[in-house]
């Protein structure tokens, strides 16, 4: 099956005298019904990539294909089936929610705008704000309005730049459920950037990690997490805090202390041996917690690695 979006050797270089390579020849595909996470530390090229995919930033070289068509040549036709939402943009605040959405409906040539916006406004809990100016909405409500804007045009591909950044955890969870539901019902493909690794792990079928404009990983979130070998062992010490610190230093295990707790990082196979040594040393712990590596650990490992 051919991908809905195909990015080939995409490159963005800013400036001529002192060129800065923001995106360095990246290639990836987005399949039909796939939710793809685009991750990476600040300045890694995520937003630049999204802007190029939207056509609001011209790329230096490479190619973007949507539905098998060249984006450069068929921009308007392609964007008919593509939509976008971001926490970092806004809507004209003097206009009401409905007026804003009606304008966007016209850009997409929608005939029955009202019928499409009402259920979505209701889903996101802002139907009562329909005739209110955008200026009266809270940051969280604006984020939800952005999602309504992105989905009421019935797109095939949705690009989301940190769509849950300003939302409360419960609303954030609802948004994630909504995205999964849209994928199930309508086979929408979603490209998603977020700093919430837990959310990405739950939502995305695949995650791409960018660093300094290059793709350094492209895999399912579980595999990326598994590639981090170290587990975290968290112990609350009853007696022997100084001795456990000395033991961790002797074995060169990274550790963090907080009051009577210590968190150590090492490979899974070393855990039983370490616990045996604690018993031998007479170190007494009152609670134990073993954490498997997560996508967040992968992210941290990635950002800590130099350069």
């Amino acid at each position, binding site marked *: 099956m051919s991908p809905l979006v195909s990015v080939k050797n995409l490159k963005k270089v800013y400036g001529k005298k002192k060129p800065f390579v923001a995106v360095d020849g990246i290639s990836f595909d987005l399949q039909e019904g796939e939710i793809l996470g685009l991750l990476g530390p600040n300045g890694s090229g995520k937003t*630049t990539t999204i802007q190029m995919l*939207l056509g609001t930033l011209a790329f230096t070289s490479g190619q973007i294909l949507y539905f098998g068509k060249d984006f450069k040549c068929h921009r*308007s036709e392609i964007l008919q089936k593509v939509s976008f939402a971001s926490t*970092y943009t806004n809507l004209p605040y003097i206009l009401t929610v409905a007026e804003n959405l009606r304008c966007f409906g016209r*850009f997409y040539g929608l005939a029955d705008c009202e019928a499409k916006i009402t259920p979505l406004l209701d889903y996101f809990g802002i139907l009562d704000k329909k005739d209110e100016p955008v200026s009266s909405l809270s940051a969280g409500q604006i984020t939800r309005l952005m999602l309504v804007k992105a989905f009421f045009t019935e797109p095939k591909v949705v690009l989301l730049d940190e769509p849950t950044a300003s939302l409360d955890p419960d609303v954030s969870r609802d948004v994630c459920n909504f995205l999964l539901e849209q994928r199930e019902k309508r086979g929408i493909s979603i490209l998603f950037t977020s700093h919430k690794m837990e959310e990405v792990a739950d939502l995305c079928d695949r995650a791409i990690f960018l660093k300094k404009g290059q793709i350094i990983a492209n895999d399912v979130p579980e595999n990326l997490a598994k590639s981090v070998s170290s587990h975290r062992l968290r112990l609350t010490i009853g007696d022997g805090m100084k001795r456990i610190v000395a033991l961790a230093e002797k074995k060169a295990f990274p550790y963090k202390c907080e009051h009577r707790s210590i968190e150590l990082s090492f490979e899974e196979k070393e855990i039983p041996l370490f616990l045996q040594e604690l018993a031998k040393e007479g170190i007494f712990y009152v609670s134990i917690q073993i954490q498997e590596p997560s996508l967040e650990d992968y992210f941290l490992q990635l950002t800590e690695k130099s350069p």
Partner: protein
Amino acid sequence: MSWQRILGVFFRYFYVLKKGLHQLSDLFYWPFVDILLWGLTSAWIQTYNVTDNLSLRLLTGLIFWQIVWRGSVDISVSLLQEFWHRNLINLFSTPLKLSEWIFGMLLLSSAKLVVTISFGSLMVYLLYSLNIFIVGWAFLPFVFSLILFGWALSFLSSSAIIYWGHRVEMFAWMVAFLFAPFSAVFYPVSILPEWARAISWCLPTTYVFEGMRIILSSGSFSYFYFAVSMALNVLYFTLCLLLFRYAFEKSREKGLARLE
């Protein structure tokens, strides 16, 4: 009262003053334009002892200059609104084409101009009992010519705004008045010094305002002035439109997101 806090307020705005083009325009540009425009008008009235239809001439000039000014700010200020509302990315990530945005803007500007002209004419009639349409509809072709020049100027300032962003936003309001002293709005071209006349005859507005004065004094319509103004307008409008398109593409190379 604390001197430190007063100085805090002073420096808060002084730093802005040093950085913004619009603060500099408030200090130098607008006073200079006003002095030039009204100084030349006064000189014309005094030198030639103009009394015939003076108020009608001045008010007609004022209303029809509004057309140029209105047209020159409509498109650029609408563009600026997208910056202020952080809506530029939302707008141009839809199927909307730049040409469609331009046509939408021209449609809106036309509607606003009809309102402005109607309102201005009505006010002049009610307040001063002067009918600027006294000579019939001969004004209309000139009005169309003024609208075109206003739009050309708006695309000129929009080109600068889309390329350089907020720091040149005052250019939207300034651009028309850059040409006002040379456009012979309130006084004939003959009052201008030699060097300024050369600039003046390159502007379509000059032919329009001179043509209007002919209508007011003799009631005849100058086809020659109208033809020259339209020819210049077509040239300037096309050039400014092409410049705007070029500036937009150049801005897209830097990224439209930087403008929000």
